[in-house]
């Protein structure tokens, strides 16, 4: 019975059954998607692009994300590396593409931080005083405190206890559900009318046609999509932790289905309620705090406070899908020799990557303050631009993992119908749609009239999204000079790739990376 240090207790790594029950997997899946915050941040912008058709875009955005989840699932089985897209990109296409995929992930996480912080700052203030919410110094200070706290939490490795998570998520969903139901009820029949700042807003009766794309231009749909993919960001983690679940033959599938149904339903009814209550114009006119503005109309005061709290806790929860993946990617890049090794340092007591976490937190704050200054001093709405920019980054790195999946498993594509669909068709649909959305948005955003605002004469989205992504290229070249060994790694030959549906799917260690000798 004695197990010594070098014994086989660790040899079964990757196969060890975990302890996540059905409810826990659903809670993780839904909570990490942060529905309350995602809606608060994006519903106004999506409505601004597609008007009353917001419910359609909200639903449609799920399709490419779900398809990409298939590639995440199988790539994770082959190489469960915390660097995800980075390591998979290296395996499929070689070090340069992998480096850029990793960079895309980091950029996406970085770009969204100001938005998280901004919404948190604003909603914390709204909780106490509506007038003070316009005080940019107050909200910015709270936003910085928010980033600092989240960074500290990630460094300490604190995770909310399962019961707190269930309670928070339960409140969040209940409040969102109540909001949607009341909003839809109020908008049917005669509806209501409000006059705000001289503009009259009138309820619109919910129509079934809101979930059909009819009458939308391709540009409007892609513009909506690039905003809406953001609301499903994080959902894929639910699929990735499947291996860890109890009774892994049944729980994962059920959990994925349940969490998906819950998410789609809550997004659908909330989108319907938001658009119907005072018409789409009201939502896009109040895109900064659409949920709050609508909540004030639809809900009793106490529920409005709950709504604010729900959005806040949800924003805090989404730090798990923001700081954690970014720092894990940085750690993986550092550890595999693709970036400074310091990024891979871990705190020996808290077992978290401390240097990466602090670096990411620090850059986030700088970036946040920069955006506040830009937004404050120009007509540019940098926050709104950041949601679109994060959509661009997500589209790139998710799109790349879809394509990586097909290229990596190319020898196994034609083995069966299941292989063909799961590692071929689905990743292809997700990858092509997302990369198309990326290309189309960059194309459209190059026009100076592209919402929301411009800097230096070109679309803000283009500046933030593509410039940050493009910054990866010189950085990569610097790393290529400093760490030539990594950049000599060749993509994995197709014949060494194992069948992802087989019993032993684990790939050999990546390139220069070797198991720690023990």
């Amino acid at each position, binding site marked *: 019975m004695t197990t010594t*240090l070098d014994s086989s207790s660790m040899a079964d790594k990757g196969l060890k059954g975990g302890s996540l029950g059905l409810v826990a997997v659903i809670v993780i899946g839904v909570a990490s998607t942060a529905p309350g915050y995602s809606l608060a941040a994006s519903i106004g912008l999506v409505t601004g692009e597609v008007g009353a058709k917001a419910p359609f875009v909200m639903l449609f955005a799920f399709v490419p994300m779900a398809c990409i989840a298939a590639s995440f699932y199988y790539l994770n089985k082959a*190489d469960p590396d*915390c660097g995800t897209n980075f390591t998979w990109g290296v395996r499929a296409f070689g070090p340069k593409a992998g480096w850029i995929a990793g960079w895309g992930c980091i950029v996406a996480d970085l770009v969204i931080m100001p938005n998280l912080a901004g919404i948190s700052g604003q909603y914390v203030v709204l909780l106490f005083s509506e007038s003070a919410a316009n005080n940019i110094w107050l909200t910015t200070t709270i936003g910085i405190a928010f980033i600092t706290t989240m960074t500290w939490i990630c460094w300490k490795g604190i995770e909310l*206890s399962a019961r707190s998570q269930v309670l928070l998520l339960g409140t969040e969903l209940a409040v969102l559900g109540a909001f949607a139901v009341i909003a839809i009820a109020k908008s049917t029949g005669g509806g209501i009318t409000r006059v705000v700042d001289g503009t009259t807003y009138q309820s619109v009766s919910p129509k079934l046609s809101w979930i059909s794309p009819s009458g939308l231009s391709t540009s409007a749909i892609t513009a909506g999509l690039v905003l809406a993919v953001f609301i499903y960001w994080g959902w894929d*983690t639910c699929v990735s932790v499947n291996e860890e679940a109890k009774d892994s033959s049944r729980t994962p599938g059920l959990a994925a289905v349940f969490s998906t149904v819950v998410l789609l339903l809550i997004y659908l009814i909330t989108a319907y309620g938001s658009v119907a209550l005072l018409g789409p114009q009201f939502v896009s006119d109040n895109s900064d705090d659409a949920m709050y503005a609508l909540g004030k109309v639809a809900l009793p005061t106490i529920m409005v406070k709950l709504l604010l709290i729900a959005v806040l806790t949800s924003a805090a929860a989404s730090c798990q899908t923001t700081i*954690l993946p970014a720092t894990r990617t940085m750690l993986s890049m550092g550890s*595999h020799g693709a970036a400074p090794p310091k990024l891979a340092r871990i705190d020996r007591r*808290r*077992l978290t990557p401390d240097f990466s976490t602090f670096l990411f937190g620090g850059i986030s704050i700088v970036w946040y303050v920069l955006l506040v200054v830009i937004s404050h001093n120009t007509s540019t709405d940098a926050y709104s631009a950041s949601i679109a920019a994060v959509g661009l980054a997500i589209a790139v790195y998710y799109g790349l993992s879809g394509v990586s999946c097909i290229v990596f498993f190319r020898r196994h594509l034609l083995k069966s119908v299941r292989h063909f669909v799961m590692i071929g068709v689905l990743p292809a649909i997700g990858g092509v749609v997302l990369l198309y959305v990326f290309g189309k948005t960059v194309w459209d955003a190059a026009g100076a009239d592209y919402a929301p605002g411009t800097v230096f004469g070109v679309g803000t989205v283009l500046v933030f999204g593509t410039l940050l992504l493009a910054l990866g290229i010189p950085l990569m070249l610097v790393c290529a000079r400093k760490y030539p060994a990594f950049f000599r790694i060749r993509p994995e030959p197709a014949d060494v790739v194992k069948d992802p549906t087989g019993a032993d799917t684990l790939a050999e260690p990546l390139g220069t990376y070797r198991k720690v000798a023990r």
Partner: protein
Amino acid sequence: MAGIVVGIGGSGSGYEAARTGARVADLMKVPLVLVFGYEASAMGPRGGPLEDQIEAVGDEAIAEIRAELAAARPALTIEVEMVRQRPVDALLDVATARNADAIAVGHGGSGPFRAALLGSVTYEIVHRATLPVLVVPNDADDEA
């Protein structure tokens, strides 16, 4: 099958619990089982470099405290289990599987409110364990 099961965390944490556990196990003439439970990330893929590094830290922590205890108590049987699971689940599973006499855990001094809200190994163990639990205040020297 019996023994005292002790939870060891990153460097330093759980050492005092291990010392107390060792004293009890020595008296009872049962093995001492050092458990290092670890979870690289609750979200997304857990494997790869992060997990390797955590394992390395765990190996080192276990080796350190094991050497200390073995030197102090030559008669004591010390066993080690590295479990790729949440620390709490790892401890409870090992204790149950071994039909252990007691679990010993360190206590770092987080208050009851914080522990209930944010979760704490000690808090959760005390509430979920079906066997005696020995809660040992951490030695200040071991606190990083």
